[in-house]
């Protein structure tokens, strides 16, 4: 096992994934997972690979950086050796959605409440267009709630924080979004 995670940042353009995956293939790496997103024309890609035995993360980073030097990619490589699999916990996933006037620190303040209860954010989408139109400033946090987390207290704290921030907040189990959107 010589598993690594590689992150790639760049200004978005056609061919980034083709180029990086081709390089990784040349370096003898086998792709396990890829995920990518584009935020305001900026590309972010994550690649989990099995690298050849004995090859270090630093070696992969140097060689990949060399190959992509002309393309303006920012590359980071980290070994996943020793990162154990997350234990399977009984959990219910909630979507916490807020909308309201834009202001600095919204994500920081809401996520601080979530983390103070030991809850993890597994997905976050935030769009801030500015101004006070609530539909243009929407945050949606996907948070698994395990048995160890005091869910009523977490939800109450989030509602209180949202009230202070003048945000409308909705806390709903993920299944409601599944049934209304996924057939």
């Amino acid at each position: 096992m010589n598993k690594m995670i590689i992150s790639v940042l760049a200004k978005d353009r056609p061919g980034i994934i083709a180029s990086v995956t081709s390089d990784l293939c040349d370096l003898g790496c086998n792709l396990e997972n890829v995920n990518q997103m584009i935020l305001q024309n900026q590309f972010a890609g994550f690649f989990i690979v099995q690298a050849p035995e004995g090859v270090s993360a630093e070696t992969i980073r140097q060689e990949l950086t060399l190959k992509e030097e002309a393309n303006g990619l920012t590359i980071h490589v980290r070994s996943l050796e020793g990162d154990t699999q997350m234990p399977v916990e009984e959990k219910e996933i909630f979507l916490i959605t807020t909308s309201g006037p834009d202001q600095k620190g919204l994500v920081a303040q809401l996520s601080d409440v979530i983390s103070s209860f030991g809850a993890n954010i597994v997905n976050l989408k935030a769009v801030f267009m500015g101004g006070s139109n609530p539909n243009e400033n929407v945050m949606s946090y996907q948070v698994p709630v395990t048995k160890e987390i005091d869910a009523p207290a977490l939800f109450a704290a989030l509602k209180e924080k949202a009230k202070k921030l003048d945000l409308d907040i909705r806390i709903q189990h993920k299944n409601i979004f599944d049934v209304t959107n996924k057939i």
Partner: protein
Amino acid sequence: MFEDQEIISTIEMVKNENLDVRAVTLGINLFDCISHDLTVFKKNIRKKIIGHAATLVETCDQVGEKYGIKVVNKRISISPIALVGACFSSEQMVEIAHELNDIAKAVNIDFIGGFSALVEKGIANGDQALIDAIPKALATTQRICASVNVATTKAGINMDAVLAMSRTIKKAAALTADEDGLACAKLCVFSNIPEDMPFMAGAYLGVGQADAVINVGVSGPGVIKRAIERNLSQQHLSLGRIAEIIKRTACKVTRVGELIGREVADILNIRFGVVDLSLAPTPTVGDSVGEIFQALGLTHIGVPGSTAALAMLNDAVKKGGAFASSHVGGLSGAFIPVSEDLNIAEAAQKGFLSIEKLEAMTCVCSVGLDMVAVPGNITEQVLAGIIADEMAIGMINAKTTATRIIPVPGKKAGDSVNFGGLLGKASIMDVPHLDLEDIFVEYGGHIPAPIHSLKN
């Protein structure tokens, strides 16, 4: 993760379009409570109903909170009292109604339905006792709903029962004259009554049902209306495309109902029955079936084109519901209750909707003449005629129809009436020839079942 639009559209359905679960109804079979001793019978039904329903309200609230979808009404339907209490007199039936009213208070539900009789083919002793008890039972309780099925496609129309119900309605109205005949708002006369309907006033648990079952009724007129408006604001659509939008939206709404109903059933360890997708309005702006007609380009519900629009709406709702769930039941269609829908009440008050047009529209809606206030001096014969006409529509078309009509004592057409809460308010509708005493309904007997009932 969901797309931004998916998240926002779901939030909008709940926040601005009044999507809710209209009713979670716990059906309870009372046949194992039967006793010839009234005291024992009352003790048995109290024990059984409270045993199943003690945590119904709390559970619905918890599940509603979890999904951010309010469960508006928590209710109970029971086996028809005329059957399980067949040995009791009408005075004893009234006592049973009081016991049920107390039980409803004890478990904090707003209505218990099943003070009911099924008399489409004949009136047995228990049925007669129950029908005789209805006026006093409804006038002296708050949470009891009654229904009497007087016709089916298979059996025809029991005209003796129709006339009996006309008299019962008049008596119930008289006993609650100081409340504008409120007792009649808790009484439905049915043709082809469904056994698994979660909506009052007709809900009861049929004899072919489980010992206990959770049925769910979802309402979504606001969601349908907004979906039509949103799509029409972006492009011109033919009615076929609009029907498709209604169908898809109804599908979403049904799935929400089933999700919540199944979870409530699981927690209570009770079998899940059906989801009844009905566009059931409330007297609230934005939660109106009548407003859907305006979204479709009609001046008001009741104008020419309304029956066609309602037919399209009702069918699309059924199709969407059928795709969403394998357990769709009850009425599943569009309700057009006059007083309970602000927009329909307004159309009636302004003269766009007459009682004759309303009757025509019930040919294609899911219920019938619902929450229609009429002048208090309407004769029993005319009232029975209206009920018989509505029953005939149900019988011939093999569909459910009902009449929930309120002759308001001392008031005339155009006067206003306010039943409060979800029952709403309306102007009293004009009934042509309301003082006739035609003898047609007094012949009694049976209108035979139609030829297409001979399927076997």
